[in-house]
């Protein structure tokens, strides 16, 4: 399992840079690729926040992310935002 997943990952990551090597993408495709970041990051937020194995779970993580949003609005550094989210979530789970 580890060998197959490892080999697949190395190929996935390498295929673009090896094949394209320093060249830029055509403009139309470039627009799509630029939008991959917001699309995938938003999906990662959602799956990490309410995702479980084939179900949606709304739990203490929501309190953690609410605290993180406050921290982001206060322009806290990235590490502080992450620690606030973990701390609030852990505290809520402790109380629960």
């Amino acid at each position, binding site marked *: *399992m*580890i060998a*197959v997943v490892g*080999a697949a*990952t*190395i190929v*996935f*990551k*390498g*295929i*673009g*840079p*090896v094949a*394209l*090597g*320093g*060249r830029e*993408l*055509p403009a*139309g495709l*470039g627009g*799509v*690729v*630029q*939008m*991959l*970041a*917001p*699309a*995938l*990051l*938003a*999906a*990662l*937020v*959602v*799956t*990490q926040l*309410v995702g*479980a*194995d*084939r*179900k*949606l779970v709304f739990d*203490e*993580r929501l309190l*953690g*992310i609410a605290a*993180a*949003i406050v921290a*982001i609005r206060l322009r806290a550094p*990235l590490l502080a*935002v*992450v620690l606030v*989210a*973990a*701390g*609030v*979530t852990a505290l809520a*789970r402790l109380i629960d």
Partner: protein
Amino acid sequence: MGPVASIVMSATTFAGSAQFAAASVLSAAGSVTAAATAAILLNARYVPIGISVAGVIRGRPLRRLLEAQLVVDESWAFARRPDGRFDRGLLIGAGLVLYVCWVGGTAAGAYGGEALGDPDSLGLDAAFAALFLALLIPQLRSPRAIVVAVAGGLIAFILIPFTSPGVPIIAAGAASLIGWRRP
């Protein structure tokens, strides 16, 4: 998974979400095939991610192949400049730091993890959500990017109950087609 297996996986499959997906399928008594499929599907996103950074990864093909392995969600998002291009130094630098911490952290966790207890009780799941959110917000500089993010988030939300972990993230990549521009 044994300690050595975990460390080998971190060194070769340098992509946390796929490793977590594989581990969660295995710990839920899923088959090895299901675990590998989930991890491979999850990592398919590195094809477009790799293409997006191809412009700043240079040198001979073997060197490009090795440098490309340093690209993970975090180093990629970290190195992305507001104009949509990538900072080569940040990409490689952040990737190297993350790689060392990741493999080292895996070794520490594999041998000392029992003492830590359940990572979820520490709020690490919410911490990752916050990390991705904090990385997302600077990307939302144009109305189009906001639409794409909302669409990507919705696609993931709708698919979570119906698909294996990992599939919602890949499917959300389709939202980027909103960014298509006529050449």
